[in-house]
């Protein structure tokens, strides 16, 4: 199992990580080795096995549909790197 540099760049783009050339090469090697070790799972036949997403099922999660106060916008915005009024500000998306 060896990842190509293109695959590493594709995954980094999906993950929104800009990697240096050094990092690309390092992760290509390390992820290849890790995925190689994962190959052992192929030895187990799981065709008839249901997947588990949560090990402990909890039921009855719905609450009454009543309005409860939410966080004060000033508090919610207090850590924002940039804001405009009661909104988070981001770099321009549409020209």
């Amino acid at each position, binding site marked *: 199992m060896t990842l190509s540099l293109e695959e590493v760049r594709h995954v980094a783009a999906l993950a929104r990580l800009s990697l240096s050339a050094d990092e690309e090469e390092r992760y290509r090697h390390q992820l290849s080795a890790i995925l190689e070790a994962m190959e052992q*799972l192929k030895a187990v036949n799981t065709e008839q096995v249901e997947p588990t997403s949560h*090990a402990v099922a909890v039921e009855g999660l719905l609450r009454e549909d009543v309005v409860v106060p939410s966080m004060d916008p000033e508090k919610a915005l207090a850590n924002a790197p940039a804001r405009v009024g009661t909104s988070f500000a981001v770099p321009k998306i549409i020209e």
Partner: protein
Amino acid sequence: MTPELLNLSMLELSTKLARRETSSVEVTGACLGRIEQVDSKVRAFLRVDAKGALAAAEASDARRKQNAALGPLDGIPVALKDMFLTEGVETTAASKILAGFIPPYDATAVQLLKGAGLPIIGKTNQDEYAMGSSTESSAFFPTHNPWDLSRTPGGSSGGSAAAVACREVFGALGTDTGGSIRQPAAMTSTVGLKPTYGRVSRYGVIAYASSLDQVSPIARTVRDAAALLQTIAVHDPKDSTSSPARAPDYLAEIEGGVAGMKLGVPREYFTEGIDPEIEGAVRRAASELEKLGAKVVEVSLPHTRYALATYYLIAPAEASSNLARYDGVRYGLRAQGARGLREMYSQTRAAGFGPEVKRRIMLGTYALSAGYYDAYYLKAQKMRTLIRQDFLEAFKNVDAVLSPTSPVTAFKLGEKLDDPLAMYLVDVFTLPCNLAGLPGMSIPCGFSAAGLPIGLQILGRHFDEARLLRIARAFEREHDFDRRAPPV
């Protein structure tokens, strides 16, 4: 300085506080003094909130004077891993991307501790986003093992474990996603308790892998771990995975002993790579429990060898999704000078995350990406079913399972940093418990010839924490591990 005071257990201290033989201000001051004295060497704390802790201690003393204590632990200082949101106190998950982040609210577990009167001394060091097994992936500095300062305290809750071990604080909370409370507990001779998935609310705890993460107490005695769990094992409507089942009284039958219990020793946990001194100590512990009246039998958990690969697909996949929120928009770091939104995301994340976090985000993104989902993520979820079934099958025949917590004792700082797979192997015995959602404990069971702590892991049925505590207590009271302090 009052070192005798700092050697007390939380419940012993509780009695002294109730009798007014000491005060919370005195005790909190002693903890702060101890931190002043040793933390430049141990580096367990990312930040200490002396002012907040002393104010909480004063309030506690005022309540005690009016016989209005909020509970047995009122006035006993504890520490929190930096995964817990603390209102008004910086919280970073040991990541640069969250440096300077001041949470607007407390995690539910923190609210419960404060509501029971416990002063919060500070926030402890950890691996960045709890991704690591040695506390070395902290973006700020590594923590040192108080038993040997050239070694790691384990991880990821290594700061909490080291702080408790070296008497800076009486107990602490950490999190355990794949062994992050039990493994450092084993490496520092402390008691770590990972409750059943859903027993403690995860609301306000920074997410790593949501189907595996669980809030976990760490202390120096089994009874203290029980008392801490009691305080936080409360249903929380804000966490949809929080169990509505009422927690039992964990101390009620804790002294009941192990007579008549059936304990299993899984043969798959004594294979390649285990340190013979650890195997010896764990097997001796099993025979001691047998002498105390338990029946010990061998059991098989046949899919154990697949747990590591299964975990390192599921946890990074969930992490890659959870950590998508760190994008420089609502809180935390924002890279300056980026052209456009997308570049701002990518540069912020590149500058803010450390190498292990990036590695796991990459691995998880790959496992979830188009064309690979079935081969990796879905396959891992199916393996998870088999691993869980192994335990359910074993628990038809035995009440709990005994094993080593870690295949190795505390390792040298830097030793495994360049080899991610070697680092991942340290968690090989703790991961299956999280995949199955079971409760698990690590308690001290010996020391190696080099003087390094060894942990015994006890795993039980879902929501059977009371039995684990009872087994742990039966073993603990035959020994004096809780009285042995590290040389620092």
